[in-house]
C-alpha cells in the first residue's frame, strides 16, 4: 500500500512538471519545471532499488544539464521568450501524433504478458554496477568515455568565438 502511494506521488511529480516543460510559454519556467520532473524520475529509480542510477541522475540531469539549459536560455535572444510565439504551425498535428503514439504504446504494453523474473537484485546495487562495468560491459564503458572526450572537444570547438 505504501509502495503504491509513493509510486503515485512520484508519477505525479514526474508528469505534471513535464506538462509544464512542453507547454509553458515562459522558457525559464519550462527549464525550471524540468528539475522537479527529473527528480520525480529519480524517486522512481529509488523505488526500483536503483540507488546508484538515482544518485547519478540527480548529479548529471538535475544538476548539470538543467543548469546548462538555463545558461543557454540566458545567452540567447529574448530571455524568457514571452514576447515571441513559442509553438510552430504543426502544434495540433504534433499533439495528435504524440497522443496516438502514447495510446498505441499503452495498449501494447498492457496486453503484453511480461515474464516474471526469478532472483532478486543484489542488496546495494552500487558494487554490482561497478563490477559489471569493469567486467562484462567494459567495452561500453571505454566507448562512452571516448564519446565524452570527443563531445567535450567538439562542444568547445563549436561554441568558441571565431578569432
Amino acid at each position, binding site marked *: 500500500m505504501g509502495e503504491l502511494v509513493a509510486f503515485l506521488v512520484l*508519477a505525479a511529480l*514526474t*508528469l505534471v512538471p*513535464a*506538462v509544464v*516543460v*512542453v507547454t509553458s510559454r515562459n*522558457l525559464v519556467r*519550462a*527549464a525550471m519545471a*524540468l528539475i522537479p*520532473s*527529473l527528480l520525480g*524520475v529519480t524517486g*522512481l529509480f529509488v523505488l*526500483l532499488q*536503483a540507488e*546508484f*542510477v538515482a544518485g547519478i*541522475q540527480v548529479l*548529471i540531469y538535475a544538476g*548539470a*544539464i538543467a543548469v*546548462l*539549459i538555463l545558461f*543557454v536560455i540566458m*545567452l*540567447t535572444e529574448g530571455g524568457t*521568450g514571452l514576447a515571441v510565439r*513559442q*509553438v*510552430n504551425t504543426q502544434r495540433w498535428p*504534433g*499533439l495528435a*501524433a*504524440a*497522443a496516438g*503514439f502514447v495510446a498505441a*504504446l*499503452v495498449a501494447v*504494453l498492457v496486453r503484453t504478458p*511480461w515474464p*516474471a*523474473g*526469478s532472483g*532478486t*537484485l543484489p542488496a546495494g546495487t552500487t558494487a*554490482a*554496477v561497478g563490477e*559489471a*562495468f569493469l567486467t562484462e*560491459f567494459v567495452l*561500453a564503458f571505454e566507448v*562512452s568515455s571516448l564519446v*565524452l572526450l570527443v563531445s*567535450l572537444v*567538439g*562542444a*568547445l570547438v563549436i*561554441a568558441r568565438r571565431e578569432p
Partner: protein
Amino acid sequence: MRVGLEHYLVVSAVLFGLGLYGVLSRRNAVAILMGIELMLNAANVNLVALNRYVAPGAVAGHVFALVIITLAACEAAVGLALVLAAYRTLETIHVDEINVMKW
C-alpha cells in the same frame, strides 16, 4: 494492489509522449532539447523497471541507463554549443527560421 511493471511502463510511455509533443511543437531549439531530455528519461525508466521486474538477477539495465545518462550529457553539451553557434551566425534559435540550407 501492488505496483507492477505495467505501472512504470505506462508512466514512461506518457513521459515519452510529452517529450515527443515538445519536440514536434516547439520553435525554440533549447525547448526542443528539453523535450529530448524527457524522452531519454522515459527510456531510462523503462530500462530500470524491466531490470527490476523481468531480470532481477543482474544489473544490466542499470548499466544501460548509466550509459544513456552519459550520452545524454554529451548530447546536451554538443547540442547547446550548436545552438549558441547558430545564434551567433544567424541571430535566431527558432528552428522554423533557420532555413539557409533549404531551397
